[in-house]
């Protein structure tokens, strides 16, 4: 695909040189992407600023104000707690926003990790082929056939869950899909002229892999990985819900909802409000991811 850029450039002077820039532009033109971006930026700004600006501590208890309902819902609501408070009088809005910070942190770093691991494994398998390919791909198949969640809860269930260990486990459980995609692209890139040319010029395998192939094929993969950030955020909250995520008192979406489940009958908002937050964030990320994916497919001719 990319070699076309160089040859076709004189014919279409308006065409930009970099494929990734064109994907960005195309995605940005769609209304879904803009809506998603606006909502996400707003929520991230709130998550970064509100907890420190309002000065409310997410773990500070205030028994007098416990089980305050959200604004305009039920009796005794207060402006100071827009989303109400939980069973210990902790402010739900601040807790949800702090939860969002952890969720984003884990979601993004996990996705980066699995993209890197998957891309490297796939690159080696696809570039060298033969026995390397067979061993690496059988390993990938084996890992793909263990449901990721069983692997994750097994490891986190028997060891102590901390933020680095959660990132590591989710990242290491999620790489096989990327390895497969990367392998097939690396295999087809390997046969192309520019790689053969570099070989004739005497470039080492490492130079070809990391200086020529990787910069070319990684960005399109990274665009699709945006969708995985949302998936990993859900995963993180599932782990939190099962009690295997970031441990209380640190609030995360998962453990707030698990906690609130016990008070569902008399304080429905504890379990449902963080979820509404989550759905907003995830929908905005997914809308952005989906339009990036469509833009990529449009440019690559529906790969």
């Amino acid at each position: 695909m990319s070699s076309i850029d160089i040859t076709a450039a004189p014919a279409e002077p308006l065409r930009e040189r970099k494929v990734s820039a064109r994907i960005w532009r195309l995605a940005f033109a769609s209304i879904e992407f803009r809506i998603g971006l606006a909502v996400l930026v707003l929520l991230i700004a709130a998550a970064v600023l509100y907890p420190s600006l309002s000065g409310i501590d997410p773990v500070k208890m205030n028994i007098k104000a416990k089980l305050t309902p959200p604004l305009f819902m039920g009796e005794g609501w207060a402006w100071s707690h827009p989303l109400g408070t939980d069973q210990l009088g902790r402010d739900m809005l601040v807790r949800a926003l702090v939860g969002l910070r952890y969720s984003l942190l884990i979601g993004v770093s996990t996705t980066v990790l699995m993209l890197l691991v998957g891309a490297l494994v796939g690159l080696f398998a696809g570039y060298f082929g033969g026995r390397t390919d067979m061993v690496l791909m059988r390993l990938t198949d084996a890992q793909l056939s263990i449901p990721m969640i069983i692997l994750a809860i097994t490891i986190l269930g028997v060891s102590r869950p901390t933020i680095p260990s959660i990132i590591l486990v989710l990242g290491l459980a999620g790489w096989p899909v990327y390895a497969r995609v990367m392998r097939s692209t690396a295999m087809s890139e390997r046969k192309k002229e520019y790689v053969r040319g570099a070989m004739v010029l005497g470039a080492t395998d490492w130079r070809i892999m990391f200086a020529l192939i990787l910069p070319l094929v990684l960005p399109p993969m990274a665009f699709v990985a945006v969708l995985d950030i949302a998936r990993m955020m859900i995963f993180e909250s599932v782990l939190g819900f099962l009690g295997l995520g970031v441990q209380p008192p640190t609030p995360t979406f998962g453990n707030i909802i698990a906690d609130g489940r016990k008070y569902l009958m008399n304080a429905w908002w504890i379990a449902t409000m963080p979820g509404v937050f989550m759905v907003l964030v995830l929908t905005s990320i997914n809308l952005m991811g989906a339009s990036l994916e469509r833009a990529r497919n449009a440019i690559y001719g529906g790969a």
Partner: protein
Amino acid sequence: MFILRFLARRLFQGAIIVFLVSALIFTLLRVVPGDPVRLMAGGMAPEALIEQIATDMGLRDPIWQQFGRYIGGVVQGDLGQSFVRPANGAAVGGASFDDTTRSERAEVLTLIADTAPMTLQLALLAMGFALVIAVPIGVWGGLRPGGWPDRMALYLSSLFVSLPNFWLGIVLALVLSVKLQLMPAIGYKGFAYAILPALVLAIEIAPFLIRTLTVSVAGVMGQNFIDIARVRGLTRDQIVFRHALKNSSIPLLNLIGVQFSMLLGGVLVIEFIFDYPGLGLLTINAVMQRDFPLIQGIAIVTAAAFVLINIVVDLVATTIDPRLEY
């Protein structure tokens, strides 16, 4: 003959995969901290007794010896016995160390065989619901690429995929079971108890089906034989339902094979929320109780199921479209 060679090759590859999975899980469970004997015998058991039980069970041998013994049993269809679950299904774990009633421990294979049909029922029902939700939306979106049904499909699938299953489960249980009292939610006393969990699971699966269907229907509708069918005088309904749908069902089938592990992940969480007595709940309890043989058994069975489902998917795909090669 052709099909036999195909089956032999795939089954052999599958056996290697299952072997790798069991080796992976087995090693993992022995390497991570946390002594299962301590949990089995109870917190008050003396150290000497713990060591004695562990040695009797062979848990102090080198890992490769333990694994050799284990895989020898697996080949003969023996997945071992649960560490903590008694055969009569009563109390679980944490009893005192000199309790004589805990001598009989449950067979892992029986535990799995008892719960698997429940999970299968849930999964099939969920798949049915998911198809009912996804097919109309996906096909409609695929028939008008770029139009508003297509956008609708995009928005709906983006929304569905953003609903965390455990949260949706809680909300639906609150609205449908508690407020409206339409259907039961927690536990299992009959088929009605499977409806709500299956619905939640279906909403989790639906976006993937919608996305695949939209793309593949749009792709098929753009092909030559569809235009020719129009020339041949077939009605629109005939074209869509007899020609387009049949051809776009193959990516859907492949998707089911690939997304099997996601489906299982969903099952796990949903069974946990709704306290539905299936394989997922069994898995979560096994992990919480460090029941190594049970975790291993479940991992092996699910890996085998994954392999088999993918073989079946490929076989069915070739019967739908004979041009495909094995």
